[in-house]
């Protein structure tokens, strides 16, 4: 009897065990261009949606922030949007194609709720073949008061040079940064105002006004006037119709070639050598005691760090070479002046201008803010957290986000002018200037300033893109990050691999940005100076 009961019990148990555990869904990696993963998405709207939704579900680094802070329910998004994509798949490509504007509107509404500041999504319309992009961070920031004034903004020190506040002015500029410095910031076409009459479009307009004012112009002056007016008219007309930076660079080079005889200062061809890592820098000594440094992107490493510098690959004497050397010299002058004034007890403060700086390489941190640390020290500014699985909440432990300083002599062993520097940490006020187009490494540097007792962030709140990214070949370090390959897969997402977390161990400022310690709107004062630089100088001089 008991044997039968025991035997029956064991059999029942075996049967029940086999039925009691759920199987997991099959999950695939979306990091590479895999035909099995992306193939169907070339032809189907629904397949593109599923790739996007699942890829994001697995790879996105800040789902807890989206859900807890912004109330986003990613599962609800799937339920809501799937039928909309299914409807598109019902449409005939030949008789009732889905237009790009229609698909763009759907993609925008799908992607807009995501708050990662770097996030860009690209869908290729299966009916038209056109790649459509959505950049939610840009859409989100476009409604901000300082968005327009921050577009292609480059600080102008002209007034400070003119009134003697700024001395030892140096600048360098390669590639597309010519556009902003030489043209975008010298004449405001919207306000019909010359900001800087010494180069670029400001020079063109100043020259036009000067020639028009002449009572009896010579023949060559009349010819020059006509050509200047043609240059101005062509620039304004065609600039209004360009769609992207590549077209803008093409227009710029067209203008340079056509009007080179006018010898407009700053009208230099943009070389393709620096299309990707073009950089503009400015250095000046303000008030004789405050070294100021501004740069447009975190690509300094490719100019300043001998281990990675591209300068030696350039041909001496070419414009690329000259500008690259100028960049290196401007940065080096700033670095040396800080240490020189510190050694002489004359340093009042330091300004690092990161307004409209689009970010770039992490290594640049050490060359700028990190160079002001006490030698041999580094700075923890918060925490980093990585994905550790395909689940939305599969995270690594919080790991310290530590920013390194640099040893100037170790960095530049063959630079004679720094060999006598006794490097010191800077305890005087440090100001980091930001605006709404201070993105990525610019914001992460501002975050570093927040962690320093003697540093202040002045200006406007940054863009909101603090989480870091790596290239696809590093994706499997964390099985996260980008979805697909740009230009190759029908769906592509540019998305971070790491969450940046504030020192409290909880707050994620993605989509929000770093709030300045002193909020100041940018205006050009009646004296022609920059309100935010003025405020930085006021803080450094008065402590308020």
């Amino acid at each position: 009897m008991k044997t039968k009961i025991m035997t029956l019990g064991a059999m029942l148990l075996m049967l029940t065990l086999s039925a009691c555990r759920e199987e997991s869904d099959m999950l695939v990696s979306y990091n590479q261009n895999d035909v099995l993963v992306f193939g169907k998405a070339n032809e189907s709207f629904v397949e593109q949606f599923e790739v996007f939704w699942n890829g994001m579900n697995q790879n996105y680094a800040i789902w807890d922030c989206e859900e807890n802070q912004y109330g986003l329910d990613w599962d609800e998004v799937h339920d809501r949007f799937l039928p909309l994509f299914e409807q598109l798949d019902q449409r005939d490509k030949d008789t009732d194609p889905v237009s790009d504007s229609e698909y763009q509107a759907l993609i925008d509404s799908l992607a807009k709720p995501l708050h990662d500041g770097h996030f860009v999504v690209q869908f290729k319309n299966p009916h038209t073949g056109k790649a459509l992009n959505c950049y939610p961070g840009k859409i989100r920031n476009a409604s901000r008061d300082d968005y327009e004034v921050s577009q292609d903004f480059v600080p102008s020190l002209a007034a400070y040079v003119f009134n003697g506040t700024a001395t030892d002015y140096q600048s360098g500029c390669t590639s597309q940064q010519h556009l902003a410095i030489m043209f975008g910031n010298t004449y405001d076409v919207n306000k019909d105002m010359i900001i800087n009459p010494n180069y670029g479009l400001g020079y063109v307009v100043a020259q036009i006004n000067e020639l028009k004012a002449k009572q009896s112009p010579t023949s060559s002056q009349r010819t020059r006037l006509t050509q200047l007016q043609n240059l101005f008219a062509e620039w304004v007309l065609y600039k209004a119709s360009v769609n992207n930076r590549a077209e803008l660079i093409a227009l710029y080079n067209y203008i340079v070639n056509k009007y080179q005889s006018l010898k407009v200062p700053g009208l230099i061809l943009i070389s393709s050598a620096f299309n990707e890592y073009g950089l503009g820098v400015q250095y000046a000594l303000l008030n004789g005691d405050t070294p100021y440094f501004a740069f447009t992107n975190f690509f300094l490493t490719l100019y300043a760090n001998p281990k990675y510098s591209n300068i030696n690959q350039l041909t001496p004497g070419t414009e690329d070479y000259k500008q690259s050397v100028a960049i290196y010299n401007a940065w080096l002058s700033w670095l040396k002046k800080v240490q020189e004034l510190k050694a002489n007890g004359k340093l009042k403060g330091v300004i690092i201008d990161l307004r409209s700086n689009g970010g770039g390489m992490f290594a640049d941190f050490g060359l700028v803010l990190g160079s002001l640390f006490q030698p041999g020290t580094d700075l923890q500014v918060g925490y980093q957290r990585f994905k550790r699985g395909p689940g939305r909440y599969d995270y690594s432990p919080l790991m310290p986000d530590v920013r390194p300083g640099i040893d100037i002599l170790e960095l530049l062993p063959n630079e004679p002018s720094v060999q006598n520097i006794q490097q010191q940490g800077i305890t005087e006020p440090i100001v980091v200037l930001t605006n709404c187009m201070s993105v990525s490494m610019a914001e992460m540097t501002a975050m570093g300033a927040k962690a320093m007792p003697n540093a202040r962030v002045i200006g406007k709140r940054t863009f909101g893109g603090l989480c870091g990214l790596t290239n696809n070949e590093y994706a499997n370090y964390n099985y996260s990050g980008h979805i697909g390959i740009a230009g190759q897969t029908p769906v592509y997402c540019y998305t971070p691999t790491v969450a940046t977390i504030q020192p409290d161990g909880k707050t994620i400022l993605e989509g929000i940005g770093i709030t300045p310690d002193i909020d100041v709107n940018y205006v050009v004062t009646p004296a022609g100076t920059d309100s935010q630089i003025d405020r930085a100088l006021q803080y450094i001089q008065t402590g308020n």
Partner: protein
Amino acid sequence: MAVLGLTAMQAHAQWRIGANVGATYNHFTVDKHYLIDYNYKDRWGTQIGLMGQYDVNDWMGIRAELNLMQKNHTVERTQVLMKHQYTNNYLTLPVMASFNFGGEKLRGFCNLGVYGGYWLSCHKEGSDYNSFHEYEYSFSEDVDFNSKRDQRWDCGFVGGVGLEYHFAEHWGVQAEARYYYSTTSVQKDYMKVKDPKYNSTLALQAGVIYFF
């Protein structure tokens, strides 16, 4: 006859109580998907508990226990410096039918039943790799439960075999090998995507029993 039969059964019915200690060896069942260099490894833990049993007759009883047991595991990677050791403490309540056989002093037994449990705490320690700053990070920390993700209630099937030795009129000792088969994923269905994870735990335990 019925009265004699009932009297005979009542003559065998008895209570027993006891305590046990032991080791657990846990297997964490999880789908690795495309995380090709992840390895989930079984890990030892400990267990301690109290038991009570009502013997209906000389070969069958109903047994219940209250155990504090560990269901531990390790996850490590082969291509990146990462090793996480998880120590999970559970309070479990197995309720089993206990079938025993053999002689007066030395008997064998088999337990079959179900259990319920609650995930009390989780501690993880080990190393991880910060690929952004390129450094190895060592850590030891208690894990905060995530109410959306973590399923703290646990239940499943349990069965074991063992030996029991009565060394005195009211005292005995037991040694048992027991297997807990959880049917509850430690991860809730918090996403549309199903990705369950289960514990299967072998417990080797020894205990002392008092027979009333």
